[in-house]
Structure formats: C-alpha cells, structure tokens
C-alpha cells in the first residue's frame, strides 16, 4: 500500500482519454483527499485498473440520483459543457462536466478508494436508461456495494457475476430509492397527526 503518488493526475488522464476533472486537498496532518470526475463513464474500468496498480483499495461505492440544479443556476453554470447550457432561455437541463444531463434522473456513482490513508473518489455520471460496467473484475470488494446499488436504483451494472438482491426481498418493487416513501410509513407511524391528537388530548387531561 502506498499513498497517492505525485503523478496520479497524469496517470489518471492517461487511463481516461476523454478527460477528467481532478482536484485534491491535503490537510495539516498530511492526509490527501482527492476527487476525480470522469467525462466518460465507460472509462471507469480503465481508471480502476490504473488505481489497482497504484495499490488502491476500493472502500465504498455510493449511488445517488442528484436532483436537477435550480433553473437560475443554469444561466451561470460554471461547467463549460457547450451546447444548450449557455442560453439562459433554453429549457435544456444543465449538463455535467462530461455532458450527462443533470435532470434529476441521471445517476451519480462515487467510487471511494483508499491509498494507505489518502482518499480518492472517482465520480461517474450515468444518464437514465444507460448502464455502467461492474468493477468486480478488478475489485472483489465491488460485489456487495454494486448489488446494493442495483436493488436501490433502477441502474444497470453490466458484468456483475451475481446480480441478485442483497438486502431487499424479491417481492419488493425495484428502485426503492427512486420512489417517494411516505414519512409515516418510514417511521412506523410514530409521528402522525392521529397519534399526536391522542397524545395531546391525554397530556391536557393529565395536567388538569
């Protein structure tokens, strides 16, 4: 195991010819936290192989569905993605650094790597209806996290050796995190108005 090498950016750029957006920060205790956003999600596997050669350990994978940025921000979007974004009146959604439309339905996958204490997160954006390659050929540790992402979202991960459900039962409808679950259901109805009217009624009586 070794920490993030000095030439990591060059190595990552070589592995991902479509481009990356890279930034890193080292804290006073010498721990570096780096972020690498891919322009092209199909270059993920090459990046993973590059990191595996650096001795990185895949620590966690986060799946999420980032909400669409508010309309006003689209005007002064800092991402220089070109078509459709610069025009303020355009109804086109904001594009990510790599050109994935950020319309609230695209998926963001964050692959959190550890290099002997330094943290490097590879960010890949996948448009709705598209898919991404599994990291399991390179990292055994990608198995469970990818299975979990597949059961929580409607995202397809291609090349996973065992794409069964991980935690959720087969009877549960897929893509649970893409649905709105009523809060009272989520909290077992412990804070509904019905319940509170009873509590407050009883509280009033008891205090009289």
């Amino acid at each position, binding site marked *: 195991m070794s920490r993030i090498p000095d030439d990591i950016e060059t190595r990552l750029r070589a592995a991902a010819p479509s481009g990356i957006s890279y930034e890193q920060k080292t804290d006073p205790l010498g721990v570096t936290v780096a972020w690498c956003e891919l322009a092209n999600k199909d270059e993920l596997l090459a990046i993973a192989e590059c990191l595996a050669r650096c001795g990185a350990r895949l*620590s966690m994978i986060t799946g999420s569905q980032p909400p669409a940025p508010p309309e006003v921000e689209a005007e002064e979007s800092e991402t220089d993605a070109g078509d459709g974004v610069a025009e303020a009146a355009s109804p086109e959604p904001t594009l990510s650094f790599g050109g994935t439309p950020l319309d609230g339905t695209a998926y963001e996958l964050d692959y959190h790597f550890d290099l002997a204490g330094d943290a490097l997160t590879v960010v890949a954006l996948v448009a709705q209806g598209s898919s991404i390659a599994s990291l399991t050929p390179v990292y055994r*540790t990608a198995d469970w996290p990818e299975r979990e992402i597949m059961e929580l979202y409607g995202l397809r991960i291609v090349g996973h050796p065992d794409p069964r459900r991980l*935690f959720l039962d087969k009877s549960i409808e897929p893509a649970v995190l893409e649905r709105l*679950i009523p809060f009272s259901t*989520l909290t077992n109805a412990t804070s509904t108005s019905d319940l509170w009217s009873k509590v407050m009624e009883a509280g009033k009586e008891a205090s009289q």
Partner: protein
Amino acid sequence: MTTTSIADPMSPATTTIPVGPLHVALEEPMYFRIDISGERVAHVGINAGHVHRGIEYLATKRTLIQNVVLTERICSLCSNSHPEAFAMAAEEIGGIEVPERGKYLRVIAAEVKRVASHLFNVAILAHLVGYDALFMHVMQVREIAQDLKEGVFGNRMDLGAICIGGARYDLDEETTALLRSSLDKLEPEIAEIEKTYRTNGSILRRTRDVGVLANSDAIACGVVGPVARASGVDYDVRREAPYHVYDRMPVEVKTRQDGDVWSRAMIRLHEARNAISIIRRCLDTLPTGPVNVGEKPDVPAGRAVARSEAPRGELIYFLKTGDSEQPERLKWRVPSFMNWDALTFMMRDAKVADIAIIVNSIDPCVSCTER
C-alpha cells in the same frame, strides 16, 4: 481428525444446512446457507437483509442536526463512531474547525467505546468456546466500562458525545476522577484477561489455526480493523489518516501474521489496553477552552468524505449537501460490511462446530451492515 478429500459442493455426499438467521453468534439475524461434506464446510452462501431499515433514505429526510442522533442509533457497539465520522464530514464541508478541547473529548469517547466493544467480543468468544465462567468474568469487567459511560455520558451505549462542531459533553473534576478510577480498575483486569486468552488450553484449542484468513485473501476482500491486522494488514485509520488529535496519541498498531480466530481476539485485547493509554494521555494533556463551536453551525452545499477507526475498523462516511437543511445523500460503509465476504475464506474446510466461533471473530454487526 483427518480430511480424506477436498470437499466438492457438487458431490452427492454434500448436504446443505441452514445456519441462522438467529443465534449464529450474537443475537442478530444473518442466514448462512452452508454446504457441508462430512463434518467440513464446503461452501458458504451468505443471505442478508433481515434487519434492513432504510436508514439511508430516512437520513435524507432529516436535518443534519437530527442525523447526528440518527446515525448514532445505527449500531450500538460502535455508536459513537457514526456521528463522529458524520460530523467530520459536515465540518469538512462547512470549514468548521473543532476546538482543541473538543477534539480531545472526542478521542476519549471513541476510546472508551473501543474498550467496551472489544471486551464484549472476546467475552462472546469465551461463551462460544463453552467457557462460560470466563464469559461472565469478561462481561463483569466490561461492566466497569459500562458504568463509566453511564457516569460520564449519561447512557451505557449511546454516548451522545458528538455534535457538529465539537463535543457535546465536557469533563469536570468529578467525571475525570470517575474516568481515571475506572481506567485504573480496568487496566489490570484486561491484562489478566489477555494472559488467560494467551495461555488457557480451552481457548487455544478452539481458536488457534481456526478460521484462517491469509494475508492475500485479506487484501483481496478489503477487510478492515482487527480482522485485517490479525492477517498482517498494517492499517489503522488513526495512524494512516489521523483525525482529531490522534497524531499526538500513543496509538500502537499491532499486527499478527496467523490470521486465525485467536489472533483477532489478541489484537482486540491489545487495542483495549492501548485505548486505556490513549485516554490517559488525553486526560493528562487535556487543554482548556470551549468544547464546541456553539449553536447550530452552518453547513453549505458541498461534498466530503470522512473516515474514522471504529472498534471494528475503518468507517467511511460520504456526505453530499445541497441548499436545504437535509443532506442530499448520506452514505456510509461500516467495517462489518467488508468483513462478511472474508467469512467464505475463513470457513473454507472449517469444522461445522467452529462456524459460530468464526462468525463471531469478525465481530459481525448486522444492523450496521444492512442499515
């Protein structure tokens, strides 16, 4: 006992037995579908999901301040590490600098939890070995740590020691004295317990060369914490990626090469003793000043990764905030999540009677894993 043939899952002599979901080692549900050949394990299938509660979804419906408490309740044994890593992520986004005293207090809380958590695990090991007198004794010693937590933090499990921007508790003369006297009681007891685990025949016969995880397998599975260190992986977040004031603490990262159940127990006992030295150093060098930054710190939109060394190993939090008070996404991976996979290596050709001991040796936490 001798093995005559390498177990083959396809051979007609293979039988499938269910182990779990209840009472495999701890009273937490995990279902193992185990193919056995004779008395040996041929194949392990892990079936999870019995306590999946959707906390990650719930966390996105709660404010950051509420989530400090919610994350503390994900798990009981490493309850302090969750809000700790979560708060570190929020502080990273908000650019909040925790006051020195707050950092020390956070270390004290984390190490107290480590002592109690490790003692609990080695106690269960004695129970599974069938040495219940030792089990009762270790649990009794752990009770000193439990009483200490109740006296200093007000609760035996959920310390409530963390808030975004620092620590939520402070030490006064009375609680410092309680801490010191409890540590003085704990230290010789743990040293004695360590000696027993090192020399007692019943323990050694059931744990040496049992559930071996080779170094290469440990790296492939990405295991963390005592499980990794017992297999020669020299990694501890407190040393590799120091946070709070761990760079100034006497953190001893001990590794062993055998990778068996016994090595994992010995690593835990060593860490429990080391934790006591760390708490003592904190008490000796505790600076004065505020313990946190004050009311309701502001956390803007942003993203951050934070890691801490929970008793069971590396705990990682990823926080993404937007413009609202609720996080856009909060994701965490607990040490147990990585360690389950290693069981398939540990149980290879293991005796059926050793399954529970091996499962316990990764200090499994199901409520953490499934959230």
